[in-house]
């Protein structure tokens, strides 16, 4: 399912002007078209840190590869749209094995109600997923918002007016990226977009697995803000507050005794455009998971506490370099309670 890096690419593809440069296979002036698009990226995480690894990496070692490729076809005929996207990605998250896997990332048909409103049906991003890192300028992931991501069996409605944006989705029998049942998921966002200031609020709730997996009910609110201070300098804020019910006990295959865990995460980031080709990006980050809180009532006391305690804080500084159109070279260094020391990546889009 959705790898974290795909979030980054989603953001990049959607918001970096000019980067949507797919190969037009067919098209006409009415808007009907078929396009092939994709990405090849090579790079990964350097010097991952066992003390600060929450669930980021399947192994902590000098280099964890995060290479990634995606290829998709999307098109429109009259009001109908469709999209098929394949990802080739590393299962490098905690519990994974670091090997490549091929997965269908998106598979939907859509319908454009108007120029500003459309719906999608099938396997697609849930609505909130589109804006869950809105205020985070970093190329690498920073604080991860635990929203639903891509889901099968999803109905999504989105609208984009001049300044106002709105979206909501419903997913039947939603699943965690591990495949574990989470129950129905409804999420959405509403935002205000302008050159100077943009704000998006996201909301999500899910129905829980009713004992099938460790995931119970959940409610979450997210906030993303971008403010252009100067033509070259933008700052952003991204954060979430989540009450997530998780099972604290298991009998056989049945998960029991769900307890609510409150999780908070926030990022303040800034982006400075040095030149057309160079961007400097920095962030400071704070994450707080109740499950990490040794003194919290729901701490899983079969395990030793994490080194970082009940919260993690770190900061990052990095740059993106675009030697040519559709090529991004990224390098980021991190300090503090970060699970990795650096991230380096080269991507090409088509």
């Amino acid at each position, binding site marked *: 399912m959705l790898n974290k890096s795909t979030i980054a690419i989603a953001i990049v593809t959607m918001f970096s002007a000019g980067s949507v440069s797919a190969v037009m296979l067919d098209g006409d002036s009415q808007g009907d078209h078929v396009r092939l698009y994709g990405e090849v990226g090579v790079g990964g995480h350097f010097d991952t840190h066992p003390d600060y690894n929450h669930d980021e990496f399947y192994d902590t070692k000098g280099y964890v590869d995060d290479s990634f490729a995606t290829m998709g076809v999307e098109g429109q005929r009259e009001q109908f749209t469709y999209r098929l996207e394949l990802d080739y990605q590393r299962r490098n998250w905690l519990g994974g094995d670091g090997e490549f896997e091929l997965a269908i990332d998106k598979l939907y048909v859509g319908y454009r109600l108007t120029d500003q409103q459309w719906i999608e049906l099938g396997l697609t991003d849930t609505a909130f997923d589109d804006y869950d890192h809105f205020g985070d300028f970093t190329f690498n992931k920073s604080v991860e918002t635990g929203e639903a991501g891509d889901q099968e069996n999803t109905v999504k409605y989105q609208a984009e007016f001049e300044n106002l944006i709105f979206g909501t989705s419903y997913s039947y029998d939603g699943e965690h990226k591990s495949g574990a049942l989470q*129950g129905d998921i409804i999420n959405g966002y509403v935002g205000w977009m302008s050159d100077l200031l943009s704000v998006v609020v996201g909301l999500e709730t*899910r*129905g*829980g*697995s*009713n004992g099938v997996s460790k995931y119970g009910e959940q409610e979450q609110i997210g906030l993303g803000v971008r403010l252009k201070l100067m033509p070259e300098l933008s700052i952003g804020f991204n954060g979430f507050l989540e009450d997530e019910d998780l099972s604290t006990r298991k009998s*056989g295959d049945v*998960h029991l005794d769900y307890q609510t865990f409150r999780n908070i995460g926030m990022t303040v980031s800034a982006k400075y455009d040095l030149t057309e080709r160079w961007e400097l990006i920095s962030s400071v980050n704070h994450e707080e998971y109740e499950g990490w809180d040794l003194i919290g009532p729901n701490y899983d006391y079969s*395990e030793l506490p994490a080194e970082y305690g009940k919260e993690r804080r770190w900061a990052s500084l990095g740059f993106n370099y675009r030697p040519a159109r559709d090529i991004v070279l990224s390098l980021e260094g991190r300090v503090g309670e970060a699970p990795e020391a650096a991230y380096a990546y080269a991507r090409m889009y088509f």
Partner: protein
Amino acid sequence: MKKSFLSLAIASTISMGAFAGVEDLLITEMTQSSDANVGTVEITNTGPDAFTFTDEVAAYQRSGGKYDNQLLNAEAKPLLSGYTLAPSASIVVVNSRASEEFRDAIATQGGTVVISTYDSSNKYNNLFMTSDDGFFLKNGDTVIDRVGAANDTSKWAPNTTLRRKKAADGNNPAQSGTFDATKWQNILPMRFDDLGKSELPAADAEDIMDIFTCPTDKNEIMSPSEVQGSGFTSPLVAAGETESAEKVAVEGIISAKVSIPNEGFYLRNFASDNDPETSDGIFVSSSAAGGLKVGQTVCIGSKVAEFEGQTQLSADTAFSWNVTDTNIVTEPTDIQVLSSDNGSFDKTLERYEGMLVNLPEDLDPSTPSDEAKEDMRITRSFSYNYLLSSKGHNRNNMVAAYKRPNLQPNHLYVAGSPESKAAYEQNNDYRLVIESSPRSNGTELPYYAGFNSDPHTNYIRIDDSLVNAQGVISQYETELIPGTDKFDQDYSLTITNQLTSDNFIHNLPRTDKPDLKDTVADDDFAIRISSQNLFNFFNSPFGGDNNNFGQSRGADSYDEYINQRTKLVEIIRAQDADVMALMEIENNGFGDDSAIAEIVNQVNIQYVDERAQDYNGPNSTENRYVFVGFDNNGNQMLDNLDAIGSDAIATGIIYRPSKMSIERTRVIPMPQQKAPTTVNDLGEVIKDQNQEILENGQNYHRDALVVTFIVNQTGKRLTLAVNHLKSKGSTCWEEWQGVEFGEATTWNNRTAPDLDYQGSCAEFRVAGAVHLGEEMEDVLGDKIILGDLNAYGKEDPVLVLTENPRNKTIVTASHTFLGPKPQFNEDGSPAIITKTYGYIDIVGEKFKEKGKTPWSYSFSDEIGSLDHILISPSLKDRVIDATDWHVNAAETGLYDYQNRFKGNIDGTGTHKFYKGDIYRASDHDPALITLSYKPGDADANVPLNLPKLRKLIKVPYQIPTGISAQVGDVATVSMSPEDDEQRLDLTQMVLPNVVISNDTTAMVNFEVFGAPSAIYNVTVSLQRDGQLVEGSQQKFVAKVSNRDTLIADIVEEEIDHTGGDGSAGSAGFISLLSLFGLAAMRRRLRK
């Protein structure tokens, strides 16, 4: 031939190592009294040559006229070996604990002091002369000289110095293997001024005896009451002194002669002084009263002493008194409480100190309007008194208390409160130790022949009234008060008359079943729950599975094991509980050979009647139990590897599948204390008197077993949490905080201060209670916390689980952990607990309604409840009754299964107090509760649990209130499986119609046959004249299943509905829109 040559010749033939000079050794002086520290023996070399002792010439003590004990040094070699005695020099052997001052005085007088250093690995090789001992020297196998008749077992030398006299011819006397008292100068009281000096008194030296003569002037003679005075101390003893400056002459009649609590006799006034404030009697401490008889008149010269709280006289020898051989009977005086005693029973007893008294049926007849008679109640049954740091008063006896048995101070009053302290003081005040004379051997009561011959009929229980027992009142110091250097002082009654069963009135007579109501309204049924401590039931040494802890705390032999098991089986059956919590059962898992399986199997043997008509009978198979197994190691098997927690004993649950079914089971791991080891100022680990680490900071509770049942025929959950919290007996880290160890490396583990009487580890039990309360908060439905909480009714852990109305500051232990998780604070500091969990101490509450006080345990001479049933408030309306059953704690431990200290063991491996009955099956009383249920009652979202018995279920129909059934109405039932996909075979199902035959019918039970196991939607209703009676229809969900089996099985839990129902919000998009009202983030499940 001279004698000495003869003896030499004999010696040389018998023992190879004899040599010249041994015939010149002579025992020349001896001192002894009741104080072994001043017992000495002087040996003098009367010959011309120096003599060096070898192993051949050895010193022996003749102990008590019975035992030859060779004196050894610390290397286990003969004590005197290697010592050289110059001509005319003396050595003086002294006890190892003789004071330095004492030894120096002997050395100054010219003697060589030989300290009896003794070998601690052997018994009885110290010189330990205590008035009844002798001494001899042996050369090889021959006794060559002796002091003290070899077979005199009396206290023949009280406070005595004996000096060897010269022979009549002025020469030194000859050695003598036998003792001739005439060859010794007798000095009394003892003197030490000649020890070490080798000169002997002349053959005609007079004995030096301190002989008293009664004054002829009667005015110089005092009566016992004049000596006693009216206060707690004698007016003759100046304030701050322990004895009078001068001797006084006291005359009286001997009212009693006893050896317990101290040896001596009791004098009484010729005639009462008619002053109730003064005692008319006094105790004379003497070990020389062997010749005196009760009824004789004695005039004694003695100083007046205040000894351990008692005013007394003393006499070392019979020379201290003059006897007139009268035979005057002393009638015992009834003890009577006076208003001038101001409520102090000590003051009452002080007025009778030294007197022969009687315990009347009413000690306070001044309150005739008060129907209750104030009498003396047994508060500790006959048992060993286990006094700490006792001054020699450890023995088997009983304790009585004024008006009522002593309740543990914290049972009714919050621990640490002024009321609790007052209760403690009152217990001390009301106590009267019941002694026998002579001392009991532990299995016989010298004053109660009926008990000795038939203890099963003539039993004595706690709370028995002791009436018309006669005896003498004494006072003595019992034991050190922990954390202080003070001793408790108690009054005692040494019984002098023979008692029968008429003297013991059973206020709580034995009953063969608990007094527990379980009558219910029509249509309802009762569920009975009990909690029983099994007194360390271990079966591993007798064919059961081994436990992982290498301990066996139960029976020591197969005979004991069978006896223990027999009694436990009887007491379990007698309680007739539907579900039972067990404590102190061997922690050897849940396999076929586990202790809990053994107990259940043995209990079930009796339940054999299989026919339906016998279902309510005492021996019906419906009564069979099964134990709840916990697959603690998760290997999907119940076996001997499923031991729970870290102790050799565990808790357990057994239940009747005919009455309830398991919904879920779990083990709640309880907090552990992982605190620093207690060290002294130098950082050294302190050991206790047994060389164990005094307090290593590692302490544990037994883990809690939690089982949620569904009561059959209902959808009511009932969760039992069975607990056995850390005991009061051994310490936790907290106990030693604030104790100044200095540089000590050993410390008595019994001396931890206990200012609020909660015993050890109260704070740690609080930590356990908090965790238990927290974990139980998530449990749905009705809940009961039961078991041995090792806390009395108003102690901190119980306050936490119930309520803390006075807002006592309750503090947890420090350094408590749940696995690696600090329970409260990361730095290990304790937490102050302000939250309480609202459970109801139902036995306490029910007893309050009945005007009684619950208790389940007897410790020392106090009783109280450690075994509790705490119910959630949701259960309160269901409670029919609750009680303790005083079947164990009220009884003396003589009746238990153990053979130790029980006297002769008969051919069946059993002692005379043993009987295969219920009494003293354990040391704790069971606690019981009955609850009432109506078929059809259900919690929200819980289907009715309708177990099949031979394919038959009973579907309950509670006719709604407001609907009056009429004769002729027809009740109908329909059932359809909830899940169509199962495609159940319903062809055999019989859904009966029931014709109402009684206008008052409020409940119909449909006997439905042949319904396959499944969840059903059930509809029941009344039809009248073929029409549905409006409002009569009821719909509910029922779960039809087989009963829980009688073979313990792993219960896989079903979903608990805390994980959501899969749908996000109740109305999809509307719900999402409502989320935009940002204020309402959902409240968390747990505060």
